[in-house]
């Protein structure tokens, strides 16, 4: 009995190893990224739930400025589009592991991203702003005023980089929303998040009515990331230029025209 079981287990394990090594052959050798996506017939877009760039409508359909432009781009390639929610910390792994084909989610073009992936031309302007309780807002109009505050920032975000550049005392939290929660609960004095989110989530009529944004710390630009060396970058840049009128219309839909970067 035991011998038999031992043999069965040994065989099972051998099978496991065999199964692993069988997958070794790259399925897409010698193909460019564009051909790879066209052969698959679907462009997989890595996103997070991020209003107004990528978010779901009542029917669960992904909409938003980025989502709508991504749909147009996929259409121009003649492929379908699939939106996949990812963990933002793992975005480069998702991209290199080919579980997604691009990151298109109001992504700030930081050195970290441009070093690890090939990015499109910038298409959108944003900046990082300081969030403080509204009652203190007048005391913290400039970056220099904020030196004494304890900041909460999203780990790995552009906000964190800017806060460090300014020499702020920072603690890193999971995401921008957690950073707001830290300020609201008083565990941090201030937070650094991007302007888009600050406009949507603070002030009158939001959950963070008692918070507001003050000093702008930098200017930054949004881009789309593809795998390093991907020829989809050129396709998208060309698409930005040729379809700029359509992109303008989408921006108008979401009230983002002012932040759009003209493509020439």
């Amino acid at each position: 009995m035991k011998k038999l079981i031992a043999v069965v287990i040994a065989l099972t394990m051998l099978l496991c190893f065999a199964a692993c090594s069988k997958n070794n052959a790259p399925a897409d050798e010698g193909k460019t990224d564009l051909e790879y996506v066209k052969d698959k017939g679907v462009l997989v877009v890595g996103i997070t739930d991020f209003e107004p760039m990528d978010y779901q409508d009542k029917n669960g359909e992904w909409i938003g400025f980025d989502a709508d432009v991504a749909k147009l781009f996929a259409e121009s390639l003649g492929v379908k589009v699939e939106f996949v929610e990812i963990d933002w910390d793992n975005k480069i792994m998702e991209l290199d592991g080919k579980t997604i084909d691009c990151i298109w989610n109001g992504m700030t073009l930081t050195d970290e991203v441009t070093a690890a992936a090939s990015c499109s031309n910038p298409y959108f302007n944003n900046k990082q702003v300081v969030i403080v309780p509204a009652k203190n807002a007048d005391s913290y109009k400039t970056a220099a005023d904020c030196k004494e505050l304890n900041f909460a920032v999203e780990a790995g975000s552009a906000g964190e980089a800017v806060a460090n550049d300014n020499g702020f005392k920072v603690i890193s939290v999971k995401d921008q929303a957690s950073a707001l929660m830290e300020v609201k609960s008083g565990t941090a004095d201030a937070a650094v998040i991007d302007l888009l989110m600050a406009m949507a989530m603070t002030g009158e009529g939001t959950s963070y009515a008692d918070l507001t944004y003050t000093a702008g710390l930098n200017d930054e630009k949004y881009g789309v990331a593809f795998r390093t060396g991907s020829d989809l970058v050129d396709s998208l840049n060309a698409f930005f230029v040729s379809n700029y009128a359509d992109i303008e219309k989408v921006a108008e839909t979401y009230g983002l025209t002012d932040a759009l970067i003209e493509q020439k």
Partner: protein
Amino acid sequence: MTTFSEQFPIVFQALNVGFLQTLKLFFVTLIGALPLGLIISFGSMTKFKPVQWLTRFVVWVVRGTPLMIQLLIIYYFPGLVLHNPVWGGGEDGRFFAACVAFVFNYACYFSEIYRGGIQSIPKGQDEAGLVLGMTRGQIFFRVKLLQMIKRIVPPISNEVITLVKDTSLARIIALQEIIWAGQAFLKGSQGISGAIWPLFFTAVYYLAFTGVLTVLLGKLEKRLEFFR
């Protein structure tokens, strides 16, 4: 912004969807890991040394590394290193990868519980069985197995309760279980942004579910009491 009573139906709906995913992962893990654990426990007890060493090595690796890392490796390794993203990017692929990681991880923990249970049965019973002319298989299935099951119910229950909450680790590969669903309202989802309470409210689901499990497992323990 919306009030709590307006938010509640939307959040409730989203958390239910998330919790369904949590439950699916929970049951698949149990159904897969309970039998697989038994097989692994045989491997770690066999007299055939190479298999025993290999099994114990694997159990050591799986129990000795964080489940979160195992999830990352199982999901991303095929695409990153083998250049063949076997799981795909969609939700089904993520769920399947999470299942594989959880089943294997929990099977290894279960295997050690099984091993303890089996080895706690006095050797005299084996000898008595052999004297009576029973085969080793008969001795295991007819004499030792039920006694073992009775003894391992409390430690297994412990793991099962832990498993309910461990399912939340699967969010690292973006499996949209209930914690993910609750956090979505912090960042903004379905017109609700910056809502803190949904995340904390998920605890109610876990608490209710572990409550049900505690009662059921307690009943199971009672029913097995006649084996002494």
